[in-house]
């Protein structure tokens, strides 16, 4: 997993909770990096799983809620860090297909070894958008948070339904977005 996610997670913990809590969850975790991440590095995704677990224990907030919250935070940060990816899209339905078709293509150019999740998008009706997420890692909640962040970013009235599909490991989820009239 790219270092940017770890850095943003650490920032979120500091901002939402405190610097002390960040120190504590780092100390409590068994991390090869000892919590030092650079945005351009690549790190074991299990480190963030462990950090989220520790944060849940520390704060009493459930892991799914923490990941969703982190997703929404992360989306905002992406908008701030990479505004050019968001310039052309007018709505979530416009933007979401670009995650796979444009953004992941660009990420691959910089990091050929990056292991990215897959998104299949379709719009069976004008106000209905389906996105099937598939990853070898258990980050369905993080993905849901990111989608929610996206909906919030475009300020649309869109409901999100989540349907977990059977899978051996990782995540396989169908997200259905319905635009409200």
């Amino acid at each position, binding site marked *: 997993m790219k270092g940017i996610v770890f850095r943003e997670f650490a920032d979120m913990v500091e901002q939402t909770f*405190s*610097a*002390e809590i960040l*120190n504590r969850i780092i100390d409590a975790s068994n991390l090869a990096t*000892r919590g*030092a*991440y*650079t945005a*351009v*590095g690549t790190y074991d995704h299990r480190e963030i799983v462990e950090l989220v677990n520790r944060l849940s224990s520390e704060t009493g907030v459930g892991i799914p809620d923490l990941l969703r919250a982190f997703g929404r935070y992360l989306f905002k940060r992406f908008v701030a860090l990479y505004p050019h990816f968001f310039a052309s899209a007018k709505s979530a339905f416009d933007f979401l297909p670009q995650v796979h078709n444009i953004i992941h293509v660009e990420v691959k150019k910089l990091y050929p070894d990056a292991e990215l999740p897959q998104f299949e998008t379709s719009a069976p009706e004008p106000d209905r958008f389906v996105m099937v997420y598939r990853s070898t890692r258990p980050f369905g909640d993080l993905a849901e948070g990111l989608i929610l962040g996206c909906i919030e970013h475009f300020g649309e009235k869109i409901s999100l339904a989540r349907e977990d599909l059977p899978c051996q490991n990782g995540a396989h989820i169908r997200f259905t977005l319905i635009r409200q009239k």
Partner: protein
Amino acid sequence: VNPPTAESLQRRLERETSARRQAEALLEQKSLELFQANEALKGELAERQRSEARFRDLTELSSDWYWEQDENLRFTHLSGGSLEKGGFNPQTSLGKTRWEIPNIVMSEEQWTAHKATLVAHQPFYDLTYQQVADDGTVHYVRVSGRPILDEQGRFMGYRGTGKDITEAVHAQNRIQYLAYHDSLTELPNRAMFSELLNHAISKARRHNRRMAVLFIDLDRFKNINDTLGHEAGDTLLQEVGRRLKHTLRQSDTVARLGGDEFVVLLEEIGDARQVEKVAGKILAAVVRPFHLLGQEFRVTASIGASIYPEDGQDEQTLMKSADIAMYQAKEEGRNAFRFYSAKMDIHTFERLALESSLRRALERTEFELHYQPKRDLHSGAITGVEALLRWRHPDLGMVAPAQFISIAEETGLIVPIGKWVIKTACWQNKHWQEQGLPRMCIAVNVSARQFSEETLVQDVVSILEETGMDPDLLELEITESVVMRDPERAVKMLKELKERGIRLALDDFGTGYSSLSSLKRFPVDTIKVDRTFIRDIPGDAEDRALTQAIIAMSKTLSLTVVAEGVETKEQLEFLRQHACDEFQGYYFSKPLPAEEFARLIQTAHAEKR
């Protein structure tokens, strides 16, 4: 939210410092990777430049050019030195498909087949077509190409090579032409005629039609070649070829088989009269005067015709039949036309076989001379010898002169053969004298054809000089009929021979209808009474009377009389009674080989002593 404690800040600083080191290490590693990637790229670039240079040199120096087309089959690239040399401007072709280039000539079928290949994205090899270059010259072009596919196997266009094969095509055409045409007359040659004839035969068979093959041979062409030279002969053949062509319909075929032999194929003939009419036209066309070396000449032709299917149903039989018919036409006096008839076969075949082996007989020394002694009727002494030609044929054995002399006469072979006979006889006589045999006169027959040669006198004189034999020991025997053919010339000729001391005899006397009185005009020494008179004496009164008269008349002219073909004692007795001088024949001796003859003389000589 409480402000971070000093400890938290310290911890964050430590993490950031560690992260920076990681980033720096990562940066260094990435820089190294970039450097290595850059080096690899430079190497690849250099290799690519070398490869391009190789390709450029290849296309510039090669006689092939290189082309590329996009997925719509429009030319996107054309390079190669041979393009410009061939007069093609690549610029006018770029952006066009091959069929949009206006000056490419290909048949509708060729285009259809080619486009089908392209639609199927298949490679193609050696597509050949004509292309008109910018300067208007027509070129033959041969192209090959294969599809360009990307990594996913998608069709991206075509690329391939092209080549100007004009020279090769022209050379090929010329070779083809030469293989099927006679270079002298530009007419089809034997090979092509054979193909055309076979084709015509199958067509005639399918449609149940008749056709004719005409064999045409110029009469006495050899004489023209010999007297005027080969160049004049060639000119004559060319003119004959032209005349034949003009005489015939466009649909008829005329070919030269070689030498002075031409052949004509008339397809779709109605009846035999039509063939006869064409043959008549050909004879008339050939007989018109030719102008060679500033002189006017006339030649004639002999034509033989065979008809499909009556006279043959395959190439060989038709050709053979026409050939036989042509020989028949020649035999019957030349400047003539004959249809083939089955009767001709047997006679002509033997003749043809004999003629061809006769031509080789001299070189192979198959000829020999046999010698028949002449005797004095009263003393019995050997007075002379007649040299007689024999042909020892490798397959047929001894061939009688009657069987081959006429062929030798017709073909003119008698001239060299005759010369050989005179020379051999003189040499042999001289040789016998050197062996100690008594001086004898040797008689040699001169044929009609030989006698008509202007060079006869000179030839005989040369032979005498060469062999060193005395002229008065040579007696030339000329038949009465030959002399009577042109008595004026004969007298002149005989006188010339006589002046050189050569003895002369009139052979086969009594058959030539010469008036006895005209005999005194000829400066001959001897009269030889034809064997046909001797054969029936003393039984036949008429022959008896004639023989008696000949002997008597000869006596008054002081000529020696020799009786030929004496086989019985009665004949001998009759001749002796009537004062005939000498005789020859089986009664005394048949013709003998040289050694045996020498022994006979030696024995006779010894007895006499």
